[in-house]
């Protein structure tokens, strides 16, 4: 069977990661595929993995009470999503569904947490990368909250 290592090495999220870590990551990784419309997970489900999107588009949704679900972000090829696996109680904070056919690498969060506990350098490296993603998303969310395209009266 073909190893997932070359795919992980090529993914922008792992750019310049020390080669020795790829073997560890591969041990927690699996290839996944979702058809258009398929639900990846629901808010409140156990967040047991994160995804590196290789192809397609995923919609992240939140459902306000008594209102239709709203898409709050979309994630495409080359991007990573899901950081709830890092923070207790390890539950998803939004729904995710495939807008198109999605091919991705899923990385088992429990498996990776164990490896990060054993090797803090790997843990620090991954936290730096995730922190950068979280910061970027937080900035984007703040701009979205400003409603900059609304009428300036």
């Amino acid at each position: 069977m073909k190893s997932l290592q070359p795919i992980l090495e090529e993914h922008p999220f792992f750019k310049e990661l020390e080669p020795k870590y790829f073997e560890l990551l591969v041990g927690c990784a699996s290839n996944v595929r979702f058809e258009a419309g398929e639900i990846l997970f629901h808010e409140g489900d156990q967040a047991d993995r994160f995804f590196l999107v290789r192809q397609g588009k995923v919609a992240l949704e939140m459902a306000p009470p008594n209102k239709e679900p709203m898409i709050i972000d979309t994630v495409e090829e080359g991007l990573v999503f899901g950081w709830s696996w890092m923070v207790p109680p390890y539950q998803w904070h939004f729904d995710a569904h495939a807008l198109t056919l999605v091919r991705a690498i899923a990385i088992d969060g429990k498996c990776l947490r164990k490896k990060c506990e054993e090797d803090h350098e790997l843990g620090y490296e991954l936290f730096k990368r995730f922190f950068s993603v979280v910061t970027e998303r937080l900035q984007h969310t703040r701009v979205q909250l400003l409603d900059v395209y609304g009428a300036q009266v």
Partner: protein
Amino acid sequence: MQGNASTATTQPMIPLPHRILKVRRETGDVFSIETQPEGDESDFHFVPGQFNMVYVFGVGEVPLSISGDPARTHTLTHTIRSVGWVTQALKKMKKGDRIGVRGPFGTPWPFQEAAGNDVVIVAGGVGLAPLRPVIYKLLAEREQYGNISILYGARNPDDLLYGKELEKWRGRFDLHVDATVDSAKRGWMGNVGVVTQLIPKAISDPDNTLAMICGPEIMMRFTVNELQKQGIENSNIYLTMERNMKCAIGFCGHCQFGPEFICKDGPVFSYERVRNIFGKREI
């Protein structure tokens, strides 16, 4: 004989009468009006980036960017968001009504500098309107430019301007068009997120790319940051500024922006020229 109805250089303070040919609803609060100069002076020439002062008789005057095709000199199109007295009065007007037009005023987008380079157009909300004439001109002279990208951000799918044209442009092989919205209901198949997220995919050769931006100032600030992150020089980033233009010829000072008058020195500026005052709250 047909003359030129552009009055900016000859009689800049006198509005010339235009007859409304069409009022078209674009989104909930945005509409376009197409007008034609009256009398012998039936041509109106402008360069993309310029604006007019549009007068609703008995109500008042507002600065409006020109959003139509610069090659179609018989008619003039403005796309307007109804937010104040004058624009609300414009929204109520019908075919055959008369308005006054002074202009065109201001500086154009930098086509000479763009020639031979890739061009990235980044628009936010109703900011696509002043960039639409740019798109018409770039497409009319397509062979003069490298890759052309149009990146557009709006509040939600219903607020996307010029939907049919966006679709048409998106279908062209020589144009990269991408749009995103701040939020959407289920069923929207496009992007959700901020417009800056579209930028990395649109730039392949930053040393030879010129960017033109129009949108709310905060959106332009984030866009400039992302363009810089992608390696585009400040001197290759252009943006169009908006202030309270009144006289439109640099006399009254209403649109002063630091040492510049937006009506006369702008509205299109290179970022290099305004970077020390751009984004300053006090200015």
